[in-house]
C-alpha cells in the first residue's frame, strides 16, 4: 500500500464535494450555539464522538470487507434526519465518482451499480480507501477528521472566524480524534464477527434536529 494515498483521500481539495457542507455548523451558528473558537471546539468535539465515531466505524467496516448494502442500511438507521440521509447519499455519490477516477476497481464499479442514487458517504469512503490499498485505521482517521474539519472550515466563513483559531481548534482535537479512530476500528472489527449491530450508534440530538431546521431554510450558504 501507499501511505501517501491517505493524504490524497483526506485532502480537503479532493474533488468529492465536501466543501459545500458545514456538518451542522451553519445551523449551530444561526441558533447562536457556536459563536467563537471555544464553542466551535465544543461543537466539533461532540460531533467527533457522535457522527465522527459512527462514520469512522462504517468506513473501517467497509475496508474490512463487510457487505456494503448492510452497512448502508446500518447508516440509514443511525441517521434519523432525512435531510442528513439525503446529504450523506449526495456526498457518497460525489466521492464515488472521484474515487473511481482515482483508484479504478471492480468493487467501486459494483457499488455504483448497486446504489445509482448514492450510498452513504462513509461506506463509499471505506471502499475508496480499500481500492487505494489503505487499511481500516486510515479510513477511520479520514472519517473522524472530516467530521470536524468541515465544520471548522465552514465556521471561518460563517463567523469570519480567524483561520488560525479554527486550525488551532483542529490541532487541539487531534488526540481525541486518535481515540475516536481507535474505537471506530475496534467496533468495526467486532462487527465483522458479530454483525452490524455491533457498530456504534452514538448520536447528537441537536445535530439531527438542526439538520432538519437548516434544510427548511429558503436561503443558506451550505448544503447541510
Amino acid at each position, binding site marked *: 500500500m501507499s501511505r501517501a494515498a491517505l493524504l490524497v483521500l483526506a485532502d480537503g481539495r479532493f474533488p468529492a464535494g465536501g466543501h459545500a457542507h458545514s456538518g*451542522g455548523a451553519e445551523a*449551530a451558528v444561526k*441558533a447562536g*450555539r*457556536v459563536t467563537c473558537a471555544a*464553542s466551535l471546539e*465544543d*461543537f*466539533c*468535539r*461532540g*460531533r*467527533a*464522538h*457522535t*457522527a465522527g*465515531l459512527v462514520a469512522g466505524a462504517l468506513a473501517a467496516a467497509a475496508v474490512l470487507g463487510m457487505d456494503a448494502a448492510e452497512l448502508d*442500511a*446500518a447508516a*440509514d*438507521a*443511525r*441517521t*434519523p*434526519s*432525512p*435531510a442528513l*440521509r439525503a446529504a450523506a447519499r449526495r456526498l457518497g455519490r460525489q466521492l464515488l465518482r472521484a474515487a473511481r477516477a482515482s483508484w479504478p476497481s471492480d468493487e467501486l464499479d459494483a457499488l455504483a451499480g448497486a446504489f445509482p442514487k448514492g450510498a452513504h458517504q462513509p461506506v463509499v469512503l471505506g471502499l475508496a480507501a480499500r481500492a487505494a490499498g489503505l487499511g481500516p485505521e486510515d479510513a477511520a482517521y479520514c472519517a473522524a477528521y472530516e467530521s470536524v474539519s468541515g465544520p471548522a472550515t465552514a465556521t471561518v466563513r460563517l463567523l469570519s472566524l480567524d483561520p488560525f483559531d479554527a486550525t488551532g481548534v483542529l490541532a487541539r482535537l487531534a488526540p*481525541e480524534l486518535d481515540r475516536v479512530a481507535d474505537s471506530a476500528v475496534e467496533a468495526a472489527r467486532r462487527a465483522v464477527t458479530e454483525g*452490524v*449491530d455491533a457498530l*456504534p*450508534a*452514538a*448520536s*447528537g*440530538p*441537536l*445535530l*439531527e*434536529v438542526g439538520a*432538519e*431546521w437548516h*434544510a*427548511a431554510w429558503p436561503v443558506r450558504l451550505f448544503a447541510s
Partner: protein
Amino acid sequence: MDGVTGTRVRAEARIVARADGRGGTALPVLDGEGPLALRRTRAQGTEARVMVVGAMSAPLGGDHLTLSARVEEGARLHVGSAAATLALPGQTKAEAHYDVRLDVADGGELHWLPEQLISANGSDLRVSTRAELGAGARLVLREEQVLGRAGEEPGRLVSRLTVRIAGRAVLDQQVSCGPGAPGGWDGPAVLAGHRAVGQLVLAGPEFADRPADARMLGECAALVPLAGPAVLVSAVAPDALRLRRLLDEAAALLAR
C-alpha cells in the same frame, strides 16, 4: 428474582399479550420480579393495560433489570409506569443495566409509554431498548431521559434505542451524557445545556403507504420519517415538563 447478591439486584419481568378470541386481549404471562411489579389495570376496548410499579428503589449501581413484553398476533397492549424511574448510585461502583425487550407480531399493537428516566447525581446506568416488529405490527413508544433531579448535576447515562421492522433496523440511536461521557456531550452538537432528551417512535404499515412529512416542532424538536415504515420525534428541552409537552403535542399531531 434471581436474587439479591450482596447489594446487587437481578430481576426479570415479563408480559405476554394474546388475543383472547372474543375481541379482547388476555395476559397469559404477567410476571413481575423484584423492583419491577406489574399490575393489570382496567382494559380500554380491545386493549389490555399494564402498569409497571416500582416495588423497591432501583436501578442502583450494579443492578441488572430486564423488562420484556411480547404482543402476539391481533393483541393490543398498553404499558405505562406509575412513576418516573430514578437511577441512583449503589453501594458498589459498578454500572447498572436496564434492558427493555419488545416484540410485536404482525397485527399486534403495543403502546409503550413509561414515565421519565431520571439520572441522579452519582448514578451510572446503561439502558438498552430493543423493539422487534413484524411487518404488520404497530408501535407507539416514548422514552424520556432527564439529566439530574431539579438543579442537580446528572449521573452517567448511556441509552440506546433500536427499532427493527421485519428484521431490518430502522432506528439505532444512542445518547451518552453525564460525567465520564465522551467529550462535547453537553456542547452545541449534542445537548447544549438541555436537561431533558426524548424520543417518540410510531411504526406501522400505514407509514409505508403514506410516509410522514418532516417538520420542526419548535426549535429543538423535529418530526422525521425514518428509512422504513416509521416516524421519529426527537426532542431536547430544558426540563422534563417542557419535554413532555413537546412530545404530547407531537403525538396529537400524528394522531390526526
